[in-house]
C-alpha cells in the first residue's frame, strides 16, 4: 500500500462543546474538573456513560494517575483510550486522534476531555518539575517559569520584526474586548492600551497583561460519525483538515517559527480552503508573541509582515479577523491542559451557533491552532485544524 495524500476527515462530526467554569484557585482536583466535563458532555448530548467507548484525556496534574486510572475513577470502560500530554496542542491533537478512531471504527463516540486544577501553590510545583530539561537547564535560572522563557522569545522577536509593545498590547486589548461577553472569562473588566502599557514589568520585555494567568477549569467535546450526530439531533462541525508537528526546526538557535510552517500547505490543501476564507481564528495565546508567530506561520500574513498585519486589523468580534473570540487564555485564564482546548471548544460553539458570548455573524469556517510544551527554550508541539459548519 502506498499512501501519497492524507485521507480526509469525511463523515466525522465534532459536537457538544462544554466548559467547566473557571476559577483562579480551586480546592478540587484535576479529576473533579475532568469528571465534570464528562458529566456535561453526557447531559448535553443525552448519551449514557456506557455509550462512550472512546476517551481522550489531557491534564497536567492527574499524577499519580494516568488516563487509565482515571477510567476506573470515573467508571468508564472504553475500548479506545488515549492520553495527550501536549499542553497547548492537546485540543487539536485529541481531535485528530479521535477522528481517526471514529473513522476506523475503533470507537463510535469519543469523549475528548481536558482539565486541570490550580491550587494556591500548585503552579510552582508544575513548572519546577515540568520536564527534565526544564529542571536541569531552565528552572535554576531565576525560576521565572514560562514568563522568562517567553520573555526571551519576545525580546528576540521584537528586535527581528520591529514589533513594539503597543502591537502586542493591541492583541491583548482586542481579546479583552472579546472576553467581556464570555461568561467564563475570569477577567471581566475592559482593558485599555494605556493600562496595558502601564502595567508592572514581570520579565522584561513582558509586563503583567502579556502573561497568562494560571487557573482551574475544564473543557470537552465529542467526536462521532456525522450520522450519529444527526440521529442525536446534535449540532456539529466538520473537520476540513488538521496538522500536527513536534520539535520542528531544532537547529534554529531561538524560536521564531513553529511547526505550522512545515505543514500549513498540507493543512489548507486538505481543507480545500485557505487562510483568507477564515471567518475567525482561535490561536494559542499564553503570550502575545506566540499569537504573532502563529499569524505568520499559519499564512494569515506573509513572513515579516506581522507587525503591519496587527496594525491593519482589529481582531475584535465585530471587526476584521475576529481572534480568540472568547477572550483567549489571556482574558479567560489558563486552566492547565484545558488551555489547549479553549480555542477549539470556542470554535465549535461559533460554528454551531451556540456561542456563550457574542457570535461571529454567519461564520462558516474557523481556524484553530495549538502550541504546547516549552520543554527547554521553545514550544515543541504545534497543531492546527480548519473546521466548518456541519451544514456546509
Amino acid at each position, binding site marked *: 500500500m502506498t499512501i501519497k495524500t492524507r485521507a480526509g476527515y469525511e463523515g466525522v462530526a465534532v459536537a457538544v462543546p462544554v466548559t467547566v467554569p473557571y476559577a483562579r484557585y480551586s480546592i478540587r482536583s484535576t479529576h473533579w474538573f475532568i469528571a465534570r466535563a464528562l458529566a456535561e458532555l453526557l447531559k448535553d448530548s443525552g448519551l449514557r456513560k456506557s455509550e462512550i467507548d472512546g476517551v481522550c484525556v489531557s491534564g497536567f496534574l492527574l499524577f499519580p494517575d494516568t488516563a487509565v486510572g482515571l477510567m476506573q475513577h470515573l467508571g468508564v470502560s472504553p475500548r479506545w483510550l488515549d492520553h495527550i500530554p501536549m499542553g497547548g496542542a492537546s485540543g487539536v491533537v485529541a481531535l485528530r486522534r479521535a477522528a481517526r478512531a471514529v473513522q476506523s471504527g475503533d470507537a463510535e463516540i469519543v469523549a475528548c476531555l481536558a482539565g486541570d486544577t490550580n491550587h494556591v501553590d500548585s*503552579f*510552582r510545583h508544575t*513548572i*519546577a*518539575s515540568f520536564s*527534565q*530539561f526544564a*529542571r*536541569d*537547564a*531552565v*528552572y*535554576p*535560572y*531565576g*525560576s*521565572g*517559569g514560562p*514568563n*522568562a522563557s517567553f*520573555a*526571551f*522569545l519576545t*525580546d*528576540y522577536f521584537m*528586535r527581528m520584526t520591529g514589533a513594539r509593545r503597543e502591537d502586542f498590547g493591541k492583541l491583548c486589548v482586542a481579546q479583552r474586548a472579546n472576553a467581556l461577553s464570555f461568561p467564563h472569562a475570569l477577567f471581566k473588566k475592559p482593558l485599555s492600551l494605556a493600562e496595558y502599557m502601564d502595567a*508592572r*514589568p*514581570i*520579565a*522584561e*520585555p*513582558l509586563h503583567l497583561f502579556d502573561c497568562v494567568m494560571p487557573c482551574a477549569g475544564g473543557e470537552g467535546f465529542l467526536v462521532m460519525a456525522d450520522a450519529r450526530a444527526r440521529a442525536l439531533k446534535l449540532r456539529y462541525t466538520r473537520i476540513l483538515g488538521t496538522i500536527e508537528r513536534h520539535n520542528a526546526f*531544532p537547529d534554529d*538557535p*531561538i524560536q521564531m517559527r513553529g511547526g505550522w510552517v512545515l505543514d500549513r500547505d498540507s493543512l489548507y490543501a486538505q481543507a480545500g480552503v485557505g487562510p483568507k476564507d477564515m471567518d475567525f481564528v482561535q490561536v494559542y495565546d499564553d503570550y502575545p508573541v506566540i499569537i504573532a508567530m502563529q499569524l505568520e506561520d499559519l499564512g494569515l500574513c506573509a513572513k515579516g509582515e506581522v507587525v503591519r498585519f496587527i496594525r491593519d486589523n482589529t481582531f475584535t468580534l465585530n471587526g476584521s479577523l475576529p481572534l480568540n473570540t472568547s477572550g483567549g487564555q489571556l482574558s479567560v485564564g489558563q486552566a492547565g491542559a484545558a488551555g489547549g482546548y479553549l480555542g477549539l471548544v470556542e470554535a465549535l460553539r461559533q460554528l454551531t451557533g451556540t456561542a456563550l458570548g457574542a457570535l461571529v455573524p454567519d461564520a462558516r469556517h474557523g481556524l484553530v491552532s495549538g502550541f504546547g510544551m516549552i520543554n*527547554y*527554550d521553545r514550544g515543541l508541539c504545534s497543531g492546527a485544524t480548519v473546521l466548518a459548519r456541519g451544514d456546509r
Partner: protein
Amino acid sequence: MTQPISRPKRKNPVMRTRQSVLPPWTRSRVALGMTAAAAEGRFELQVCTTCGAAQYPPREACHRCLSDALPWREQAGGGELISQTLLRHSHDIFFRERVPWRLGMVKLDCGPTVVVHLHGDVPAPPIRVRVGARLDKAGMAVLVGFPDKDVPNMADDRQLREMTCDPKFRKVLVTDGKTAVGQALVRSLAAAGADLIWVGHAEPWKRFPGLVELGQLPQVTLVPLDVTDARSVKEIAGEIGAKVDILVNNVEFHRAHGIASRYGTDVARVEMDVNYLGLLRLAQEFGPVMRSRGADGQSSAVAWVNMLSIFAIANFPAHGTFSASKAAAYSLSQCLRAEMHASGLRVINVFPGPVEDEWNQLLPPPKLAPEALAKAVVGALRDGVEDVYPGDVAQEWLARFRQSPKVLERELAAG
C-alpha cells in the same frame, strides 16, 4: 559598568536578617556531570564521540546520531548573546529575595543555545559573550554569561557574588599563622581585600618567625587557638564565630612515617588529633553559627576551606600515617559539605602536592611554594570552586588516580 561594592556597615540587629535558602537544586543524574566539572572550575559539555555534536541540556543520547558515547569535554565558552530578560518576578523563594535578576540566551560557537545568568556588564544583544560554569549557592553548576573582555569590578556583580566566595570585605579566620603556608594565606587574603583576618596560633608563648610582623598588618588580629583543645576552640568560636565569613583550616601536624618506621601510635595519634579531630572540633563549634549566616547580606558567611593533601586521595607510604589522617579529614569534609549544603556555605577542599616546608625536605621537586598555594586558595574563593589540586604533583597524581586508582596504588607502593 559594575559599581564596586563598599565595606558593609555594622549590622543593625533590629533589621531583618535574610535567612539561608537555596536556588532550585534538583538535577537529573546526567546533568550532574556539568557540576562535577564546575566544582573544579571548568565549563564542560557533553560532546558526542561518534559525530562530534555538542549537547545541551545534558542528554542520554546524542541529539544528532543517537550515540550514547557522550563524554564531558571542556569548552571555550565563546558565543553570541541573542536574547535577554530582566526577571522581576520569580516562583522560587531564593530568587524572589533577589530580583531583579538578569538572564540571557547565548548561541554558543560550539552549537547549542544555552540559558545563562547574565553578568551586568554584558551589553544588550546581539553581542559577543563568554560563557563559563559556576557553582550556584546550592552547589550545582549553572552557566554564566560574562562580558567578552574583562571589565573593572567584574567580581562585584551582585548576581555573580551569589555564586562566588570572594574574600573582598569578608572576615576570615586562618586557623594557624605559624607556618609559611599560613602566613602566605594571610597576606594573600589581605591583598584580596579581606576586611578582617583572625590568625590562630596554638602556642602563644612561642615566638615563631614572621608571626609578629604578620600581626602588624592592619587587617590582622592574632588569636590563641589550639584545635586539639576543645575548650580553646569553643572559646574562640564564642568570641568571633558569629562574625567569621570564611574559615580557612590550615592547621596541620605532619611527620614522615609509615607503619614500620615509627613504632607505636603516639605520632599517628597526634596527626589524627590535629588533622582529623581538629577539623571535627572546629566544625562542631563554628559550623552551626556559620550555617546560620549563609545569606546574611553582601558579606554573608560563604566558605570553609580545608587544607588537605594530595596524599588524602591515595596513601603515600613514606608519609603513611599522615596520609591516613588527611584521608580521614577528607572523608569528614564531605560530611561537612553535606551538612553545610542547606546554608549555601561552600566547603572548599584543597589537595596540594608536597609543599616546600621542613617536613617535605626529603621529597624531590617540584614542590609547591607557600605563596603559590595561597594564591590557589584565593583563586578558588574568587571563582567559587569546590575542589582544588594546586601544583604539578597534585595535578599529576589526580590524573593518574582518575585513570586508575589501582595502578596508582601499585606505583606508590613501588616508591
